[in-house]
Each structure stands twice: as structure tokens, then as C-alpha cells.
């Protein structure tokens, strides 16, 4: 069972995205699509023919596969419902960040491959946002890693010490800002937009259709759920079990779903209550996040909590 916990991320990630969409719609006073709409979208895309630009090279075809498979490999490393995580020998949290970077690298290349301005714009902005997010993400992870004495995620998740220390709260705030930026949500990027001037993620995948687009979108859902899972593993590990008994696993799965829905609810609130920021206002938000992460580290060094 512990070998297969990453399958949960693959299977459930469209659902989490559906939940966020549904909640957002409800908050905006619309009925919104059904909870399983993301699955239907993916199935529909898989069954469609593809149209590919003549300008593109093999990078365009390889990028969806690299993005999709690398995200699955990242998911294998993360403990989802039990900290008995046999794949954690493959890498730690730093490796996960760099595996994400691998996917992003190829997605940005694919954006440039078709030779359109929209793709280039999306790539340029995506890489710029990544530059601002990465240090903050790393620093907030470092605070957690230093206090746990390990960068191994299973170790991080099995430390059930005091979670609500000042340093952890600051690190969590920075981590949430990083998640919002990494998953392309408001106020950093608008996942619903197709207005050329504002889009980041959608700009890069503009040329994609059919199964390639499905892979890209699915990878995006998985990355989102993975980041949520990392957040609960590092900051709210309570409830995750350290054995593989079926009953305990079921219990842990329930708690995990509850946590996921809570984060989805939180994201929906943020998305509904904030406006998208102008691109060049982003540095002030993200640098603010960096300062939070740095303060959390200083707090931990100075006070030890």
C-alpha cells in the first residue's frame, strides 16, 4: 500500500481542482461546474485530435511527457497518508523543488517553440515569477528542515513536535504565498483567463491541444495537489500515520482528504476575495514573502522555536 500512495495524487488531483472551482463559483453566486468537471475535461481532451504548429520541434512533443512524468516522480517521493515512504530514498524536498524546475524548464521551452509572442510572453513571465518564488520557497522549507534536522520529507512529516511556533507560522505564511505563485492562482496569475495580456501559464500552453494539453493540465493539477500535500506534511502533519495497518490507513486517508478540502476552501477564499495583481506589482508581494521566510529563519535561530 505504501508503495502506491502517489497514485492518490494522480487520481485525486483533478477532484481537488474541481472542488476549488466549485467553491469559487459558489462564493461568486454561480452554481458552477460539477465537482468532477476536471475529469470530464481531461477525458474529452484525450479523445480529441491534435493540431500542431509547423514551427515546432521535438521539444514541443517531449515537454508534456517530461512535465507529466517528472511530476509523478515528485509525487512518488512525497508521503501522502503514511510516513512509511519507500521511495524517499530517491530524493528529499530539495530534489522535489528541482524536479518541479525540470518540468517548468521544458514547459517554458515549449512556450518558445511555436515562435509566437504569446508563448514567449508566458515563458518569460513564468521564469520571472519562478526567480522571485524560489528563494522564498527554499528559505521557508529550510526553517522546517533545520528544526527537524533533515530534508527528508517523511522525517519532516513524522516530527510531531510543537507546530505552532512563531518561526513555523512565519514560514507557513511564506510557503502559502509560494504555493499561490507556483500554482498560478490569483493574485499572481488567473487560471481562468484567456486574455493574452494577463496570462502566464495559459500563455505557455496556448499552442497545445488534445492529449498534450491534457497531460499539461493534469500535471498542473498534480503539482497543485503535491504542493498542498507538502504544506500539510511540513506544517500540519498531525494525523499522518507511521505504519501501514489498513484501518489506520483508512483513518489517515480521511484526515488527509479533510486537510485537502480545507486548503482548497482557503484557496477559493483567497481567489474570490483578491484581485489579480499587475505583473510588475508581483515583486512587492513575493519579496514580502521572502522577508517572511527570512524572518522565520531568524526567529528560529534566535529563539530556537
Amino acid at each position: 500500500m505504501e508503495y502506491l500512495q502517489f497514485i492518490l495524487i494522480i487520481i485525486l488531483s483533478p477532484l481537488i481542482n474541481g472542488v476549488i472551482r466549485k467553491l469559487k463559483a459558489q462564493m461568486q453566486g454561480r452554481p458552477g461546474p460539477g465537482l468532477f468537471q476536471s475529469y470530464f475535461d481531461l477525458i474529452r481532451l484525450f479523445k480529441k485530435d491534435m493540431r500542431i504548429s509547423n514551427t515546432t520541434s521535438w521539444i514541443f512533443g517531449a515537454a508534456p511527457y517530461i512535465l507529466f512524468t517528472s511530476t509523478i516522480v515528485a509525487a512518488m517521493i512525497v508521503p501522502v497518508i503514511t510516513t512509511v515512504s519507500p521511495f524517499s530514498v530517491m530524493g528529499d524536498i530539495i530534489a522535489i523543488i528541482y524536479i518541479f524546475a525540470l518540468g517548468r524548464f521544458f514547459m517554458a521551452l515549449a512556450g518558445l517553440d511555436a515562435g509566437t509572442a504569446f508563448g514567449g510572453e508566458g515563458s518569460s513571465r513564468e521564469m520571472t515569477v519562478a526567480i522571485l518564488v524560489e528563494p522564498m520557497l527554499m528559505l521557508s522549507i529550510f526553517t522546517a528542515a533545520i528544526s527537524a534536522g533533515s530534508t527528508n520529507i517523511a522525517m519532516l512529516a513524522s516530527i510531531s513536535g510543537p507546530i505552532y511556533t512563531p518561526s513555523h507560522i512565519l514560514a507557513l505564511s511564506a510557503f502559502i504565498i509560494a504555493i499561490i505563485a507556483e500554482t498560478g492562482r490569483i493574485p499572481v496569475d488567473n487560471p481562468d483567463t484567456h486574455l493574452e495580456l494577463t496570462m502566464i501559464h495559459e500563455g505557455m500552453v496556448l499552442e497545445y491541444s488534445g492529449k498534450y494539453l491534457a497531460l499539461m493540465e493534469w500535471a498542473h493539477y498534480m503539482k497543485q495537489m503535491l504542493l498542498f500535500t507538502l504544506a500539510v506534511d511540513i506544517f500540519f502533519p498531525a494525523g499522518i500515520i507511521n505504519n501501514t495497518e489498513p484501518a489506520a490507513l483508512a483513518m489517515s486517508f480521511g484526515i488527509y482528504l479533510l486537510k485537502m478540502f480545507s486548503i482548497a476552501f482557503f484557496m477559493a477564499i483567497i481567489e474570490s476575495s483578491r484581485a489579480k495583481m499587475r505583473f510588475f506589482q508581483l515583486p512587492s508581494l513575493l519579496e514580502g514573502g521572502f522577508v517572511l521566510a527570512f524572518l522565520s529563519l531568524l526567529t528560529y535561530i534566535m529563539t530556537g522555536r
Partner: protein
Amino acid sequence: MTAVNTGISCFLIAAIISILPLQKIKRYTYIISSIGSLGFGLFALSIIFSAPSKLYTLNISSAFDFVFYGDALSGFFLLAISVLAFAVSIYSVGYTKDMKNPGAAGVLYNFFILSMYAVVLSGNIITFLISWETMSLLSYFLVTLQRDEESARAGLIYAVMTHAGTAFIIALFLVLYTQTGSMDLAEIKLYASHIPDTLKNLIFIFSIIGFGTKAGIIPLHTWLPRAHPAAPSNISALMSGVMIKTGIYGFIRINLDILQQSPEWWGITVIVIGAVSCIIGMLYALMEYDMKRLLAYCSVENIGVIFLGIGAAMMLKSNGLYTASSIALAAALYHTLNHAVFKGLLFLGTGSVMHATHTKNMEKMGGLLKSMPYTGLFFLIGSVSICALPPFNGFVSEWLTYQSLLSGFNSVSIASKIAAPLGAAALALTGALAAACFVKAFGISFLGMPRSSHAEDVKESSASMITGMGVLALLCLVLGIFPGLTLRVISPAVFSYTGAGIMPTGAGFLHIGGSLSDLSPAAILISIIIMFITTVIFIFIAGGKRKISYGDSWDCGIKALTPRMQYTATGFTKPLRMIFRKIYLPKRDLNISYIVKPFFLSSIKYSGEITPFLEVYIYRPLTSLIRGAARRVSILQSGSLHLYLGYILATLILLLIFGGN
């Protein structure tokens, strides 16, 4: 010893054939050079795994003798040079085909490699300085090989900078000699503990300036982005891949090997230098559209990463954390080897591109991946490696650097506790900057539509050039997925510094005992492959075989998408230019000429550039200061013979007065 003798004779034979009037076969001498570097590679492995020993002594007189000495550290650098020299030599067979003066290039090339070997094998001060100077001079001639104004200027700046650096190196060796009374590096090491602390600090600072100039740390990097583009690409690959590493070697030899113990602030200073070099170096690399200048700035960044590792090793050792210190030094050496491989690969790739398109400007390239599939693939592998993305080699060394910096938290002092994670954050920022930089470098030049006539009808490079690059690309992967094997080569050198070994448990597997962190790039690669196969099968089941049709890119319905509408390298980095404008100090010039104001335009001229603040605010004032001083001194040299006779008379009188007794 037979391996090294074969090696030396191969290089000498290759050099001799190069000056013979045999135009047709001249370029095949590089094959002999590649065999020579293989010999040195085997020799390096034997040195690494045997006890330190004097290899060869040549007595000139009682005071001067040439001593060559080999230990694990010099063996490791020997290996790094050999690996790159091997691939570059194969590449050069094809690359030098249309070269203007192949004879001079061949001779210089072979002696240049030999001089680098001599530097890392030097056993005493005299040998070191002579080899060092030979290496610098030969590389100067190689930079100015293409006789044009750009090369001449670049060569001048390089010569001035490198000699300023050498002056500091001579000074630090003088201090060592006067304090220990020995020329021999091994003997100096024995007496080094008796050197007073203030002089040790002086040696440390001199070594940063002296070796830092060669390595290219900020702010001593200014020669790099000039000299690398001026040299032929096979030479740039060697200079950037291994020659600047001799600076790293010298720094490690003096501060980590000879002085052994260092106060904590040394380590923190080196971490700060590393962090600044990697961030500023990468920020400037991002703004370049000249491919070779971009790679040169990128070398500054990678030297920064190596210095982060060295600094962490020094800091952790001074805090008594020997195992963590070993990891840090291993990370630095690992990155040294990695950088030699992937930077060499990228420079060779750029050489192929320049060979085919006759331009260095990426704004004029585009779509090259289709016309140059192998060069493109290898350049992509180099880019992925340099961005430290798994499963390639850059990732392993950066991961080790992260781990060592994070274990800095176990230090006693607060300064170390804060410096270490901030160094790691700088590394994270650099990683993201590097990714953006190489998305730009690869995306703009190899993807999209050809941006100018340079990029149309391009031919793939010759077989030897592709082989040379292929060797390095394969090494990028091998060094990436078998970190255990690589660490076996590195650990003897690390052990001699910290006394703590890092014994990897398996070839493709790393385990940091203290923090229980694991990394297995081999497993990551295997998982990616398995998941890829699963995905392909899954898609086939879920969607079946679907039709693929081809058409134009989305053009919003204008039906006239031209290459000029693509994103440019300058446009790609515009957001960064705005966000980091405090560092870039961008300037823009907009000239609009009207037929009738304000609606009828005849032309718009836009130009933008960034201000290199180090050059404007440090180097220009410094050079004008030196020039001013020189001008004042030149009053003494009036050219009048009578005045000079007067100087002699005055000197004589002064000597008689003060030196009489």
C-alpha cells in the same frame, strides 16, 4: 609513470607536427593530443589513489629546482583537465578545419594544456609561479589568435588583470617563504602552523585577490566576458572549463591544504564572495544576447557556487563539524568537475553554432534545433545540467552544497548559523536565474523560426565535432546518475583536509548520515523512464490513436506571422530588467523623427543597454587614478639627458650621505 610519459610525448609530438608545413593533416594532430590527455587521465587516477609523493625533480642550481609533486588534490584537478582536454581535442579536429593559422593554434593548444597540468602538479614555489605564468601567457596568445580589434583589446585587459593577480600570488608566496624558509610546498605545510595570525590573514586576502582574479569572482571577473568570446571556441571551452579552475586549485592549495586551520570569518567571507558572485554573475548572464559572453558570465556564477562550497567547508571545519565540512568540500570539487564538463560542452556547442551561422548574436538565430539536431540536443543537455536539474550532473553537486550549508546550522556561532542558510537561499535564487537564462539561451537560438538569414540553410557540424560534444553530454548524464562513483574519486582529496571521509553506499546513491537525507539520481531517472512508458500506454488506452494535423502557429487571424513577431532575447528578460533595475541601471534611448508632429512618423529608433556598475563605479575611477599617478610620475622622465645625469648625481650624493656608514 608510463601513462604520464606517453601523455607528455603525445602533446609534444602533436605540437611539433603542428609547426611542420603539412597543411592537410595538421588538424588530425588533435587526435594525438586526445590520446595524450587519456594518458594523463589514467595517471591522475593513479595519483588520486596513492600516497602523496614527489614525482619528478630537476635540479637547475642549488637554489632553484623544478619539483613536481602529486597528491589526491592535484590528481583530482589533473583528472578534470584531462577529461575536458580529451573531448575538446576530438572536437578540435573538425573545428580547426577553416582556421586561419592552424600551426600556431596547434602549438599553443598543446603547450597550454601541458602548462595547466604543470600548475596543478607543481611541488615548489618556483615551479608553480613559472607554470602559472606560462599558462597565463599561452592563454593570452590564444585569446589574441584571431587578429582583430576585439581580440586585441580583450587580450590587453586579460593580460593586465591576470598579471595584477599574479603579483598578489607572488606576494603571498614571498610571505610564506620568509616565514617558513622553504620553497617546497610540502615543507611549507609542515611549518605553516608557526606563521603568526596577522600574516595568515594577509595570505588569505592575497589568495582571494590573486587566485580570485584567475577564477573570476565578482568584482575581479571583468576579463572573463571579454577574453572568452575573443578566443576560438575550443580554447574558450578549455579556458572556462579548466583554466579558471586552476584559480580554485590555488585557493584550495593555499588556504585549505597548506594553512589547514582557518578562523571562522574566512569561511564566512568566502561564502559571501561565492553568494555575490553567483547572483551577480547570473544576473549579467541573463542580459547578454552574445552567446559566448552569456556563457562567460555563467562561469562567474559557477565559480560562485564552487566558492560557496569551499567557504562552507572552511566555516564548518572551524566550527568542528568535520563530516559536514567534508560534504561541503566534496560538493565544491564535484561542482568543479561538473562545471568543466557542462561548460566545456556549452562552449563547444556555441562553437558549432557560430561555425554554422557565423554569428554569436542569438537575436539572429532561431530554429536551429531542426537544422542542427545533434548540436541542439547536446546544447540542451548542457543547459539542463548547468541549471542543476535532475537527473544531470549539476544537480548532484548543488544538492550536496545545499546539504552542507544546511548542516551549518549545527555550528556554535550565530554568524555561521545565519550565513549558511542565506548562502543556500542565494543558491536557490541562482538556480532559478540560471533556469531563466538557459530557457532564453536555448529557446531563442534553437527554437522558433529563424530570426535572420544567418539561421537559414544551416548545416550540422562535422562528425568529430559532434563526437567531442557527445562525449561531454554523456559524461553530464554519467556524473549525474552515478554520484557514488564520482565521490570515490573526490573523497581522498577531501579526507586529507578534514580527516573525515564521505563514503558513498552505492554507485547511484547518496546518503547524508547526519540529516538522514538521501538522493538517488539513478532511481529518479529510472522512475522517469518507467512512468514515461506507463503514460504512453495509458494514453493509448484512454484516447486511442488520434489524428495529428499540422498548421501555422496561432496568429490571431492576421495570417502573416513573421519571425520578427517572436519573442526576442532582450524581450524575454525585460521583466527582470525592470525588477532588478537597481542593479542593472538600464538606460534607454528613444529617437523619434517626425514628418509632421505628432502623428506622422518617419522613423523610430530605440536602443537600450544596461550599465555595468562595477566597471563604471570601480574600474573606471581606479584606472583614471592610476593614469593620473602615472602622468605625475612621468614628469621625472623629461627625456633630457642632462636631467638624468643630475638624477644620478643626486642619488650618489644621497647615498654617500645616508649610506656612508
